[in-house]
């Protein structure tokens, strides 16, 4: 609590004055930024006004090697660390799509999304102990919390695991503290509580700051939390009073007003030392926070705050209070401070102007080139009037963007569609040259184009000894994990029942005993932070395999997979990565919540990840081995009813690899191609026997990997032969079967090879019902596959395949 802090933190006067400068500068940035948006030069602004002083204090306690997982109001903190230039901040505000201008996101994120680029351009890791580390910001409320679990817990692993001692680039004895900030209203989110609990359980060094300005946009605390006081309800997380070195689990709690500079400095210094030395986490509740400019450029707080509240906010503005404190303590007089303020205004204005000019100049140059091309075209064309109009319109746009130019060029090309190529060529060339540039600006780095890509891992086929034993599937995967844990010290596996039990299907049986509690660990029932834990750990150089017990439970973690993990590489344009391996099992067991295969829901939300669907445990082992050689995030869905199916044990279980995006033809045939994956492969094989009995020779392709999908066009090659295709899976109608159909017919150009209407066969629209018959009528079965293929053959050759049903 605040009274614990001794407010006698000594800083030299010039340091304090420097803090005033930083705080004042940051406020100016907010004011100017808002003005830029409201005058139409940028699309949206959200700023850190009112939170400057606590952030100045955090920056004082934040060390190299530490991690920030904050949110979009942290500009003061990041700027105070010296890792955010004001000009870069404005560049991001304007959406300047250039990595030099906006080194955080290259114009891909809106303002306030901070990034430390811990990945070199060649995909290798920088020395994180020499950096102020910033996990790339995410906007969804409380989404910064789950990964904080892993960022903080990594310090525990680096300190306690002998095997990790020599990974100097990532940690120095686990001394790194993970810092989070969150708004008061976001603490009403489940993710916040889940993360707070998990960090407490893991005894991990995190400092969580809650900025409490009394509102969540317009909704006051009365509607956000019990007692309207977050620290009061966090009380139960507080550790028992004891010496830090003997402390069991729990947090230190602090409550500090946003305007109290001395208390802030002291609190953060003390909290940081405690976390660093003893791995004891803290919750810091910053009260009396104001929001001088309102929530964002999308609104005005005068609409929902009372005049009294607004007057109070002016009075208790942290910068105003800081200024008064500086003067009261004789650190500077009014004239000096006014001088500082004038200088800082100029600094901000200069930075803004540089950012704007640098953003505008390529656009103005490109616009003038486009205008010349249009004028030139107008002189040669019979549509001179129309082209002149297009040209004049483009020239009149005050702040041109590339969309204006492309629209004008498009219009001109439509106008001149009947004219000779010589007239149109310059504009077509212009259009053609722009395309790869825009691809690079907006589409690059969805997955890794570099050497760390899983697609670059070479395939190593399983090798079987002549006397290879036939074992249960779970024994195959168990051997693979054993080998992986033995060769990769950074590999850490965890999840519900993964540790002592060795997972509910025995994949990790005996491995905790062999590799210790830190390497193979149990977690609480908390899927979102199991994933978050893995994200934070992967950011810090570890190789987590996090387990979501059943595919159906992935929905808890899906938001984070989608918002954070899958977008990380893309939204930083290659500046950060988190090679998380999410392990789960799915497709078939029993009932609504244990047999789902909602693959379309997943693949449509996690573009940027690999989604792998091995049909058996040997293939699954191959994928894990591949992923551990690469550094990309992936989801592996094992076949739930495959653990007790016998497989031959490969001699090279620790080495064999399966490459994502490469299907396998599991049955060669000539009459129709059945495309499927996972548990349905065995069912399709059953069906193919029935089909063979009536003279139909089906080819079965196991796609193995949904993201990426058949990158070499294996399926279209099959289609060239059979001209008939059926897509089968257990997803809903129009789900992943439709996705595969599009890939094959549209992307691979399979359409032209079709001789029969393409078909999909999926599970039912409803959830799988309980019981064997419930499963049979909810999921595709051998009879349904037989009928679908037979129906195609009947249509093509009714004389040979008479109607039977």
């Amino acid at each position, binding site marked *: 609590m605040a009274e614990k802090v001794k407010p006698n933190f000594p800083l030299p006067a010039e340091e304090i004055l420097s803090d005033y400068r930083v705080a004042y500068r940051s406020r100016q940035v907010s004011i100017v930024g808002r003005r830029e948006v409201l005058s139409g030069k940028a699309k949206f602004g959200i700023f850190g006004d009112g939170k400057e002083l606590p952030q100045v204090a955090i920056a004082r306690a934040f060390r190299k090697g530490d991690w920030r997982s904050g949110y979009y109001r942290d500009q003061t903190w990041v700027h105070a660390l010296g890792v955010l230039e004001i000009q870069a901040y404005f560049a991001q505000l304007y959406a300047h799509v250039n990595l030099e201008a906006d080194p955080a996101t290259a114009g891909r994120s809106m303002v306030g999304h901070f990034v430390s680029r811990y990945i070199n351009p060649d995909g290798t890791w920088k020395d994180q102990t020499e950096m102020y580390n910033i996990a790339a910001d995410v906007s969804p409320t409380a989404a910064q919390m789950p990964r904080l679990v892993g960022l903080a817990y990594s310090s525990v692993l680096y300190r306690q695991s002998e095997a990790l001692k020599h990974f100097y680039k990532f940690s120095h004895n686990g001394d790194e503290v993970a810092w989070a900030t969150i708004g008061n209203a976001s603490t009403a989110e489940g993710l916040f509580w889940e993360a707070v609990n998990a960090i407490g359980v893991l005894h991990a060094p995190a400092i969580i700051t809650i900025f409490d300005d009394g509102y969540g946009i317009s909704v006051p605390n009365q509607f956000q939390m019990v007692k309207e006081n977050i620290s009061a309800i966090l009380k139960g997380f507080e550790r028992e009073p004891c010496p830090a070195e003997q402390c069991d689990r729990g947090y230190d709690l602090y409550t500090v007003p946003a305007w109290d500079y001395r208390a802030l400095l002291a609190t953060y210094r003390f909290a940081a030392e405690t976390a660093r030395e003893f791995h004891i986490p803290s919750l810091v509740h910053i009260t009396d926070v104001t929001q001088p400019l309102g929530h964002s450029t999308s609104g005005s707080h005068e609409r929902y705050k009372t005049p009294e509240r607004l007057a109070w906010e002016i009075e208790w503005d942290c910068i105003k209070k800081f200024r008064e404190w500086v003067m009261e303590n004789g650190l500077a007089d009014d004239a000096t401070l006014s001088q500082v303020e004038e200088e800082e205004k100029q600094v901000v204005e200069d930075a803004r102007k540089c950012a704007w000019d640098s953003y505008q100049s390529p656009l103005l140059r490109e616009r003038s080139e486009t205008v010349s091309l249009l004028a030139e075209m107008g002189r040669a064309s019979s549509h001179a009037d129309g082209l002149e109009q297009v040209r004049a319109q483009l020239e009149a746009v005050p702040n041109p963007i590339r969309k204006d130019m492309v629209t004008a060029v498009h219009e001109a090309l439509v106008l001149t569609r009947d004219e000779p190529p010589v007239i149109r060529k310059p504009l077509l060339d212009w259009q053609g040259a722009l395309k790869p540039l825009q691809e690079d600006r907006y589409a690059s780095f969805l997955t890794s184009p570099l050497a760390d890509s899983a697609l670059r891992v070479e395939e190593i086929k399983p090798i079987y000894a002549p006397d290879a034993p036939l074992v249960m599937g779970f024994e195959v995967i168990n051997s693979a994990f054993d080998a992986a844990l033995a060769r990769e010290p950074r590999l850490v596996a965890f999840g519900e029942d993964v540790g002592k039990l060795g997972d509910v299907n025995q994949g990790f049986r005996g491995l905790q005993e062999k590799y210790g509690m830190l390497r193979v660990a149990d977690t609480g029932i908390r899927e979102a932070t199991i994933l978050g834990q893995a994200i934070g750990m992967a950011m810090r150089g570890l190789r987590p395999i996090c387990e979501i017990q059943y595919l159906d439970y992935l929905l808890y973690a899906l938001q984070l997979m989608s918002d954070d993990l899958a977008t990380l590489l893309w939204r930083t344009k290659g500046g950060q990565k988190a090679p998380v391996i999410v392990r789960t099992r799915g497709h078939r067991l029993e009932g609504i919540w244990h047999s789902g295969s909602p693959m379309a829901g997943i693949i449509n939300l996690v573009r940027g990840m690999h989604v792998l669907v091995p049909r058996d445990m040997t293939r699954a082992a191959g994928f894990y081995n591949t992923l551990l050689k690469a550094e990309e995030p992936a989801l592996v869905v094992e076949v739930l009813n495959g653990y007790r199916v016998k497989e031959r044990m490969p001699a090279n279980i620790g080495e064999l690899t399966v490459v994502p995006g490469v299907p396998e033809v599991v049955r060669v045939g000539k009459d129709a191609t059945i495309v499927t994956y996972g548990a349905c492969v065995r069912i399709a094989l059953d069906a193919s026997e029935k089909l063979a009995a009536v003279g139909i020779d089906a080819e079965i392709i196991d796609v193995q990997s949904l993201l990426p999908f058949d990158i070499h066009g294996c399926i279209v090659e099959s289609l060239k032969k059979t001209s008939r295709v059926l897509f089968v899976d257990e997803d809903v109608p129009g789900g992943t079967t439709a996705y595969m159909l599009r890939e094959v017919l549209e992307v691979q150009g399979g359409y032209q*090879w079709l001789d029969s209407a393409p078909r999909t066969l999926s599970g039912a629209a409803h959830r799988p019902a309980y019981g064997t018959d419930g499963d049979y009528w909810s999921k595709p079965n051998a009879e349904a596959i037989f009928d679908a293929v037979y129906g195609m053959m*009947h*249509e093509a050759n009714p004389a040979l395949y008479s109607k039977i049903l």
Partner: protein
Amino acid sequence: MATKVLVPRLGEGVDELTIIKWLKNEGDVVKEMEPLLEVETDKVVTEIPSPASGTLLKIDIPENNPAAVGTVIAWIGQPGESVPVSSAPVSSDPVSGVPAAKIEMQTGVEPPTNHGPSSVLISGSGFLSPVVRKIAAEYNLDLNQVHGTGLNGRITKQDVLAYLQQPTPTQSNLSRDTGTLGNLIPVTTVRRQIAERMVASRDTSPHVLTVMEVDMSRVVAHRSANKVAFAADGVNLTYTAYFMAAIAAGLKVYPLVNSHWMDEGILLYKEINIGMATSLGEDGLIVPVLRRADEFSLLGIARAVNDLANRARSKKLRPEEVRDGTFTLTNHGISRSLFAMPIINQPQCGILGVGAMQKRPVVLTDADGNDAIAIRPMVYLSFVFDHRILDGASADWFLVKVKETLEKWA
């Protein structure tokens, strides 16, 4: 915007026709529904009415040229209106061409059907799968030449590949010397279609032949007695009328013979519509249909048979007069054949061939069991039936009924 004149689909399986005569010249004014041109298919010659009122601006395909269904053959519009230049006739998509032809041409031609009059099943689609189109484009194939074996006669990839593997060159319209093999002569569309249909029929139905001979004494006597009276009514009483009547009587008693094999079952036709194969000499064969043959008297049958045969020879049959047959009669005896094995006219169950009538010595046995040799006018009836529907015995029952009807004619 000028109106396109498109080639309509005149019946199931008719993918191409020949323009015989333009009834209007370019520049002539034509009224909507006024006859615009005459076309010929393998089965009919018919007039095509104008789809719009206006001036015939341009004829894309001149007389005596073939045109595929859906092809633009002319343009009607206002004088001076421009029409697209077409150096070569471009066939439009046959699938979309069908409804277009139907709407724009307003020919009154009913939607094509490949079943009998009571059929409610889906008619054949002209759908060409992407890969079939692709192969056809690559090899520059005329798909009208390819026999479709898919459901409803769809041309499948396998059909096209089988066609390509045929040794006979079919793409050339010129007779050419093939060296020691001999001289290759081109075939007409009609010849080719006959060839394809014959093969298709043999591929579809297991053909079985059964033959009986008929003593025609009573028919001959009846004809001699009534010929003059019929002539007074303007009717030429032919033996064909007797055979038609006898077949109708047989079908009435054995409806299973008046049927059509389908995957769902055997479709028994409600009506007895007997087609009579009529030779057109070098132009092949046409089969006009006598509808509801069982409802006619001998006079009615004779009159109708005369009329159909005459108009068949003068190519004046209407499209509906060559459709919907449920059984076929063919008189191969005209060319002195005694018995034959005709090919079933799909999708019917059977076809009855009538051989040449000959006076032959036959052994007659009277009621007391005494044998005698007599000279009688005899005819062989060759009945070919679809073994999927009929077995030998049931087929013979029908044939016996026909035989007895003729032998006991009164």
